[in-house]
């Protein structure tokens, strides 16, 4: 549906429709001949009221035949703090006797704009508004990983999961790490240069500043580690944080935890405890790691193949505060040999990988053989 309104400054509120009227208004003592010009704001799709066309009628032919003049003849400004800001980007087209401007991006709901027509003998200005939309807060912090309430003092990263896509930019304003004994915020705990979102905008990775974790670096020597053994902390999320729609979180969030001694050991695949599933069922294959592993990496870097080397499709999940991997196959297990593959890049919560410690003491380490994937085997009997 295409809606045109002219000559009445009314909102067609029943259907979120348009909009503005834009009668003509001439300059004083215009050069002859005096012509009438009109501006219309058109909303082709009432479901998307920000996607407007601004149409100018009654322009002289000298303008209509000269595309180079269009950007100066018809402009739309976002009304804001300053009067001397430039007009919106967009495209101009001629539609018979009308010059049509389409903004490059949809106009924002609840905002006011000014359309401006300037041509010889014509000067029209009209202010219009895109109706606001009442949006309720929906987004919440769904989970924070690692989920345990005791975490090593050399913890490398936390994942904050949201129930809905979040806004990006300036996120560190809304996240506080508080030392619960002193009640004060921990000084500069995050590596803030990047915001590490997943593509959906629903998971933020908080990287504790590696210069505060790695031994022998100045940030750690000057400011100490971010977490100290035996102290209690709270990760607090401010509800003022806005989601992708620009609406605040529905509620604040807090995760409390205590710092344990540093984890200075690599994940040891050889020591993992396997619980084999029951053949002819979809019962889960379980692996107990003996320590918490990085949730995102454990979900991605452990997989199963059958005797033919075919990937076994199914669903992996972590349990017991990320110390256990559960794998439920899509089809029932059959008798035979299976192989569990573990990417060497798999890390625990302190960034120690199967391949190497987060920071290797080069005087103590032995050069490890370069293997990409470690494998474990198990066999199911009929």
């Amino acid at each position, binding site marked *: 549906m295409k809606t045109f309104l002219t000559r009445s400054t009314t909102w067609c509120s029943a259907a979120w429709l348009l909009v503005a009227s834009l009668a003509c208004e001439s300059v004083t003592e215009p050069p002859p001949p005096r012509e009438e010009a009109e501006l219309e704001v058109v909303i082709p799709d009432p479901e998307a009221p920000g996607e407007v066309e601004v149409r100018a009628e009654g322009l002289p032919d000298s303008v209509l035949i000269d595309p180079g003049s269009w950007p100066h003849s018809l402009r739309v400004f976002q009304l*804001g703090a300053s009067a001397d*800001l*430039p*007009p*919106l*980007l967009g495209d101009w087209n001629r539609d018979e006797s009308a010059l049509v401007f389409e903004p*490059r*991006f*949809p106009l*924002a709901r609840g905002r006011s704009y000014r359309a401006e027509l300037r041509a010889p003998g014509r000067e029209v200005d009209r202010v219009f508004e895109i109706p606001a939309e009442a949006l309720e807060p929906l987004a919440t912090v769904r989970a924070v990983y690692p989920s345990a309430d005791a975490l090593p003092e050399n913890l*490398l*990263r936390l994942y904050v999961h949201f129930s809905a*896509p*979040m*806004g*990006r*930019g300036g996120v560190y304003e809304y996240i506080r790490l508080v030392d619960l004994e002193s009640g004060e915020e921990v000084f500069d705990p995050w590596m803030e*240069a*990047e915001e*590490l979102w*997943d*593509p*959906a*905008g629903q*998971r933020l990775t908080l*990287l504790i500043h*590696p*210069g505060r*974790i*790695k*031994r*022998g*670096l*100045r*940030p750690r020597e*000057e*400011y100490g580690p971010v977490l100290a053994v035996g102290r209690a902390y709270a990760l607090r999320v401010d509800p003022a944080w806005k989601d*992708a*729609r*620009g609406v605040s979180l529905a509620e604040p969030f807090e995760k409390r935890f205590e710092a344990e001694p540093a984890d200075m050991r690599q994940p040891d695949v050889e020591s993992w405890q396997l619980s084999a599933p029951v053949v002819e069922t979809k019962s889960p294959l379980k692996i107990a790691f003996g320590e918490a592993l990085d949730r*995102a*990496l454990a*979900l*991605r870097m452990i*997989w199963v193949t059958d005797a033919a080397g075919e*990937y076994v*499709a*199914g*669903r*992996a999940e972590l349990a017991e505060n990320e110390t256990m991997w559960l794998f439920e196959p*899509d089809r029932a297990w059959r008798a035979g040999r299976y192989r569990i*593959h573990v990417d060497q*890049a798999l*890390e625990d919560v302190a*960034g120690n*990988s199967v391949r190497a410690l*987060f*920071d290797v*003491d*080069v005087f103590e380490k032995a050069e490890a053989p370069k293997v990409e994937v470690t494998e474990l085997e198990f066999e199911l009997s009929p």
Partner: protein
Amino acid sequence: MIPFAMRIAVGLAIASCLALPAVAQKADAKLQEGAVELQSIGPIAFGPEHTLFVSDPIGAKLYAIDVQGVKSAGFEKGSTVEDLGGKLAARLGAEARDVHVVDLAVNPATHQVILAVQRGQGAGTPILMSVDPSGELSEISLKSIGHSSIELTNAPAPGEQGEGRRRSNPRLQTFTDVAYVDGQVVVAGLSNEEFASTLRTIPYPFQKASEGTGIEIYHGAHGRFETNSPVRTFVPFDIAGEPHLLAAYTCTPLVSLPVSDLVPGKRVRGTTIAELGNRNSPLDMVTYQKGENSYLLIANTSRGIMKVALSSLDRKEGLESITSRVEGGDTAGVPYETIESLQGVEQLAQLDAQHAVIVVRDDAGKFSIQVIDLP
């Protein structure tokens, strides 16, 4: 010694003087006219012949785009664009807080300034813009433009190759820096999952269908603890006549890496040349020559700009400067000073031999583009 980036510029100038038509046609033939559909925008950098490299982290692609058609005027000493955030917001129809200048690049041949901008919340809309010294901001339309591209494999989950498993891949490689060095594009990345370094080198013109192999970059502390740590930002620089990268890690040390060592699949250990001893992360770096000496300027997340004297690096023995423990929090390695007058610098790019272009945020939170004398 001439900094490496300047050497490229000199080379370009000579090439354009000779203006061999056959060479120009060959260069054009690499780029196909067509639409570039960015899913996101990351760091950008100029290469040869008005080629702009544009990274797309979500799309996991690197584009080479011909921006010779950009009409804006070049920047020069004294050029200033006030209230860049307000102007961008007005142009893009957004709130100032929803407009992010992701990167800034200067065309070395024309001194035109190009901005990589993200508009809006959520994943946002990527947009490439030119800015004129008058403050006019124009979109560089990507609907039909000469370009070529290469995929930067975004490490799919092994499980995703099967059926019925998780449908989305939450892993994302954020690109933190891109530069053209000696016939190849170097891309630094930071994953939202694993910590390991993922520096990649991609020969240009692009050849292979996919370029997924990273280089393992290690860095040591006090010659003792080493980490396979991501490089955040880097700049090309000649040391003793050999092309190197000066690279800053996420965890603050500044290292040098010989470009010839940057071979996919190889383990490379950066030589620590300075520990800048700050709590922030480096954002951008440029190198330049002043008188007899070479310097490196580093913009950090919140400190003033750092100026590092590089002349000692020209001797091989300068490279061994930090292999033992630095006591008492002293600054280690090559000397540096902090230029306190330059606060809030968020983008830094070289304009010419004497000037740099910066995007700087004032106390009120307003951004501007300024041209500064290289200190």
